[in-house]
């Protein structure tokens, strides 16, 4: 009884999940969804208590993929951590590289040449496009559309990964950005290939839109499901497409204007129903905005060096101090916090992973929904377990 009183006294959107009571006198069924479940994108467990089909309690359990990333970085040179950042969110390694490079550049006061900034924007937006395309594909696959949208998304992603491979040497584990620029320059042929790929992307978003947006089954399954109230989203520190789907206008590209983002003309789409369908739609609209940024960046990219000639690759010792570099990664705010004690290794290295923090509201979104919708709500968060567990 006391619990129920507490619930009514708290203001709307306060950061504790509402207490669900089973109706009727049946027994609760406890189910461990995962760690080996096709919908969990890796090894992740949801301990769910069910009253029939209704979710009464949900406890996310993670840590199965813990690899000691932060402690490893403390024993390694600043350069040595760069390839490990690829392996956080392995779908978007280039934005991980960028966030880490940004943090170290802040720590050492390193400047980045103009052309490198443009290349970073081009690669970052290509990464965002392919992440959103495949995350929509996975979301729809979890709904039961076995493969078609996902395969269309992967067909497009393949073209973007070929671009990454031609420039960086690897499709996913790119290890491309350096403190003070980028590792290798993009040739004129590469830029032409990129322009050609970008010219084909609007056809793909149009195809996805026609295929999915007005599909009655998709609308019936996603609209009104997994509502995340904006007050709770802000209180829980949710960022990225999840937060914008809850109607909060917060995009670090606009807020910080890091890199050269304040030079580009783009809009920030916002949701007004706060449900799974909005999260799908926000990603589709963000892909269109990414195409706009890409077109502008590929038109304006200047000639020049991609690496500051004074920048040191290895063996540098930043002055004692701290720095926090953050970017708008495709999944949300990705930040790297570094403390230097003047040595060749960071004294403390901390990652602020968007996947983990967006996952903390999973119970609030899933309570009272059906089990089949839990999979869908989980898919709409768009996580990668490599980043959740680190």
């Amino acid at each position: 009884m006391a619990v129920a009183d507490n619930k009514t006294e708290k203001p709307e959107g306060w950061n504790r999940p509402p207490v669900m009571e089973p109706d009727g006198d049946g027994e609760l069924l406890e189910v461990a969804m995962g760690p080996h479940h096709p919908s969990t994108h890796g090894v992740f467990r949801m301990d769910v208590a069910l009253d029939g089909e209704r979710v009464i309690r949900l406890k996310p359990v993670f840590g199965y993929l813990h690899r000691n990333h932060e402690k490893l970085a403390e024993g390694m040179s600043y350069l040595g951590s760069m390839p490990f950042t690829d392996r956080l969110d392995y779908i978007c390694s280039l934005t991980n590289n960028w966030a880490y490079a940004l943090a170290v550049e802040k720590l050492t006061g390193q400047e980045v040449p103009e052309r490198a900034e443009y290349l970073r924007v081009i690669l970052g937006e290509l990464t965002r496009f392919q992440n959103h395309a495949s995350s929509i594909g996975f979301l729809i696959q979890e709904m039961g559309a076995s493969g078609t949208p996902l395969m269309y998304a992967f067909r497009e992603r393949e073209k973007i990964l070929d671009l990454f491979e031609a420039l960086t040497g690897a499709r996913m584990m790119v290890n491309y950005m350096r403190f003070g620029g980028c590792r290798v320059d993009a040739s004129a042929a590469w830029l032409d290939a990129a322009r050609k790929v970008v010219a084909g992307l609007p056809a793909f978003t149009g195809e996805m839109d026609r295929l999915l947006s007005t599909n009655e089954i998709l609308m019936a399954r996603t609209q009104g499901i997994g509502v995340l109230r904006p007050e709770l989203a802000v209180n829980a520190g949710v960022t990225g497409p999840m937060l914008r789907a809850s109607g909060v206008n917060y995009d670090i590209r606009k807020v910080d204007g890091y890199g050269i983002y304040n030079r580009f003309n783009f809009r920030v789409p916002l949701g007004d129903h706060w449900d799974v369908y909005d999260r799908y739609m926000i990603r589709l609209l963000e892909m269109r905005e990414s195409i706009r940024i890409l077109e502008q960046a590929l038109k304006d990219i200047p000639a020049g060096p991609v690496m500051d000639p004074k920048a040191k690759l290895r063996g540098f010792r930043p002055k004692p101090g701290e720095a926090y570099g953050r970017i708008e990664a495709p999944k949300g705010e990705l930040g790297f916090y570094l403390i230097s004690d003047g040595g060749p290794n960071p004294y403390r290295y901390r990652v602020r992973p968007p996947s983990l923090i967006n996952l903390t509201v999973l119970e609030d979104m899933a309570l009272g929904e059906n089990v089949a919708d839990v999979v869908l709500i989980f898919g709409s968060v768009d996580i990668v377990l490599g980043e959740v567990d680190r």
Partner: protein
Amino acid sequence: MLGEGILKGLAVTARNFAGSFVSAERLTTVQYPEERIALIEATRDFPFLVYDGAGWEAGLRCVACQICEKECPPKCIYIEKSADKKPDYVGKPQFYPARFDIDISVCMSCQICVEVCPFEAIKMDTEFELSTEDRFAGLLFDRRRLAKPNEHYRRIHPAEAAEVDARLASEKAKADAKARAASDAAAARAAARPAKGGD
């Protein structure tokens, strides 16, 4: 009308299905072991050691400076320095690796060893069919297995190799000119000495 969205979606899938018969661009998969896509030039997977000339042991560019061993993020390189020295490509006596092992089951293909190497001695290979039944010794590559001729490097990364070859040739020309100047000066001194002794 209910079902309109589904019909619209089905039109998209029908166009893709029919398109795959007429357009090569829509047919994106290949039957791997029989059909192969040409590798992109920048592709990398595991490191190899470059040697010049005919003999792999004599021609290794590596001087066992151990920078790559120190910088390797997953620490998969093991180097033992030699006791004696052998001449390198400009003729200067240098140490060489008595032992150079890379555990490619640990290597994560980040190519930091290539970037930090000051002697252009280690480069990234593109050979990817490396599966073996022996997962310990079979994946621990020693220096014999790692050594590959410069021609191999030129074949897999032509543009990059041409750049490296030009840089090494100019360094060698500079070293040769310096050596020639030094030997000329020594000859001149030797020629001048008997005249001095005659006085």
